[in-house]
């Protein structure tokens, strides 16, 4: 198990380096110079130059060949490329170009809000969809199954925006069941998170249930299910004990894949419900071309993803005894 975890951790290294490479390529290709935006109404040449210097855009791209030829090794690596790797890897992000806040502080202060929204949403989504999928799988072939599957497909066809607009207007404003927007940290958060969470779950439910249903049905065709029935077990017991644990294996693999997709949902939800999370931070940064922030966000979210993958792998090994042997 330990060597398994170590190996997984080692696998993460090339991935992270890859992310760094991709961000470097992306953000060095971006057209238009952010300097104009930062400089404001009437940008003068010297202001632009100063901004470029601050962003490190004045440095050579890959290698300072001049410094290298003069034998100054350290200076030779003082290039955009190496600085990008060095600074990002050490989480030594610069300040935001627009707010001038240290990015890392900002991420730290916003991550809790994002997590308070995303975590219950994620868990709720998984739990509800597995529950429904079990019901559907149990009732396979009956009208309950047909109707639920139909609802799921309809549900997944409706764009998320429509859910949000509807939920905010009717559930929060007209019916007054939830606050319209806002966010407070601490226990208060749950009051504000409830509706966005609910909407996130509702909009994701369709595709999840549908997928899990397929997984469950696949599992139910397995031979061991027949064995379990032959022992005299009841359907619910077979379903909840034997099928569920096996179905968790494919479910877990897709869980980690769906984490990045959650981000998308959070993005819109955070915006409409004024939740000061990473999503709105990213969107702001994106709109104002705040590269250091975008870069930091890409990196940290990827890092989170890689961590998530690690956790998944471990869960995987816990659920599936065949894995840990490898």
């Amino acid at each position, binding site marked *: 198990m330990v060597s398994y975890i170590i190996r997984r951790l080692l696998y993460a290294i090339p991935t992270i380096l890859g992310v760094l490479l991709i961000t470097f390529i992306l953000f060095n290709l971006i057209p238009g110079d952010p300097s104009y935006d930062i400089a404001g109404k009437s940008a003068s040449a010297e202001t632009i130059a100063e901004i470029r210097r601050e962003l490190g855009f004045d440095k050579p791209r890959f290698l300072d060949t001049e410094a290298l030829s003069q034998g100054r090794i350290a200076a030779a690596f003082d290039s955009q490329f190496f600085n990008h790797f060095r600074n990002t890897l050490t989480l030594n992000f610069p300040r935001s170009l627009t707010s001038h806040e240290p990015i890392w502080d900002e991420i730290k202060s916003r991550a809790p809000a994002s997590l308070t929204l995303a975590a219950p949403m994620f868990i709720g989504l998984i739990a509800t969809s597995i529950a429904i999928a079990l019901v559907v799988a149990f009732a396979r*072939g*009956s009208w309950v199954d047909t109707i639920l599957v139909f609802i799921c497909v309809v549900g997944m066809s409706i764009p998320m925006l429509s859910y949000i607009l509807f939920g905010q207007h009717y559930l929060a404003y007209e019916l007054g069941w939830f606050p319209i927007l806002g966010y407070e940290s601490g226990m208060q958060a749950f009051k504000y998170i409830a509706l966005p969470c609910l909407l996130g779950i509702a909009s994701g439910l369709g595709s999840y249930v549908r997928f899990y249903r397929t997984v469950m049905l696949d599992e139910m065709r*397995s*031979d*061991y299910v*027949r*064995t*379990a*029935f*032959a*022992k*005299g*077990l*009841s359907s619910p017991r077979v379903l909840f*004990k*034997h099928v569920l*644990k*096996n179905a968790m*294996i494919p479910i877990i693999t897709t869980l980690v894949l769906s984490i990045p997709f959650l981000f998308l949902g959070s993005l819109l939800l955070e915006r409409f419900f004024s939740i000061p999370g990473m999503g709105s931070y990213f969107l702001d940064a994106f709109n104002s071309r705040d590269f250091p922030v975008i870069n930091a966000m890409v990196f940290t979210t990827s890092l989170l993803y890689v961590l998530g993958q690690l956790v998944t792998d471990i869960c995987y090994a816990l*659920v*599936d*005894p*065949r894995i840990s*042997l490898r």
Partner: protein
Amino acid sequence: MNDLLQIRGLCTEFRTEDGLVRAVDGVSWQVNPGRTLGIVGESGCGKSVSALSVMGLIPKPSGEIVGGQVWFKGQDLLKLTERQIREIRGNEIAMIFQEPMTSLNPVFTVGNQIVEAIKLHQKLRTRDAWDLAVESLQRVGVPSAAERVYAYPHQLSGGMRQRVMIAMALSCHPAVLIADEPTTALDVTIQAQILELLRRLQAGERMALVLITHDLAVIAQIAHTVAVMYASRIVEYTSVEALFDQPLHPYTQGLFRSLPRLGQKKRRLDAIGGTVPNPLAFPSGCKFHPRCPLGCDDKRCQSVEPNLRLIRPGHVLACFKAAGYEDSPPCDIPTQAPTEVSNG
């Protein structure tokens, strides 16, 4: 009905996208304590489905038992509620399956899976159930059973897994054990071990055994009575000696002829021509007639399906061409018990 397990006129159908498949068509047989019924026939002839029908494990909603009765200790299993049948399933009638590789749940230890069966049918404390599990593993000859209970299925070899399956099936001391091709996936040496084991256990517990296989040699070794199935139906049903001495149905005869036997070296074997019919489009009349060496040209064989007749004591057959068939009374199951053969 004083037989332990008797099925009569069992019909099971599957609805598929290409049409209705009648996988079992009016099958009857019986088995008594300490006796072994062998069911032979080639792939797809309905052996497994008939066994699953008895267990009430036909996959729903595509499959359905459309007729017949399954009498067990004087009650018709098909009329029982799901709850009642669960009481019997795994407890009084147990089943082991063809695929030892996939028939165990890969994510639970074998002990866990055996204990589950034990606790379901016996009021035992968990501790005792585990002890019983170890014991039942020992009984089927799993070495160092006390450690193997904590093993996962993938950590065991195929023969080992099949033994676990048997241990699980036997853990509640069932009255009837249905073994669906328990050795097909195994090696000859392992197969010999498993067969030996089954024979021993059966003798010890006076259990009724239904053994499904397509290997006549296995049948010869272990069965008392044999039902030969072809295309969803039983075509011949008799004691094992009678069958091996003088098979009457042309299909059975063909089987015997095409069987390579040790020590009989022939350049060519006698083969049954043609192929196994597609269950979606069975031939009319006798389903074997397109392949039958005796009388493809016979009008009656082509249009009327022969029913089972008691052609001689303890020997039931469905073939127009057999001598004396016309005069014999219709009969599903030999009423007269086949002659006892001493059992090693």
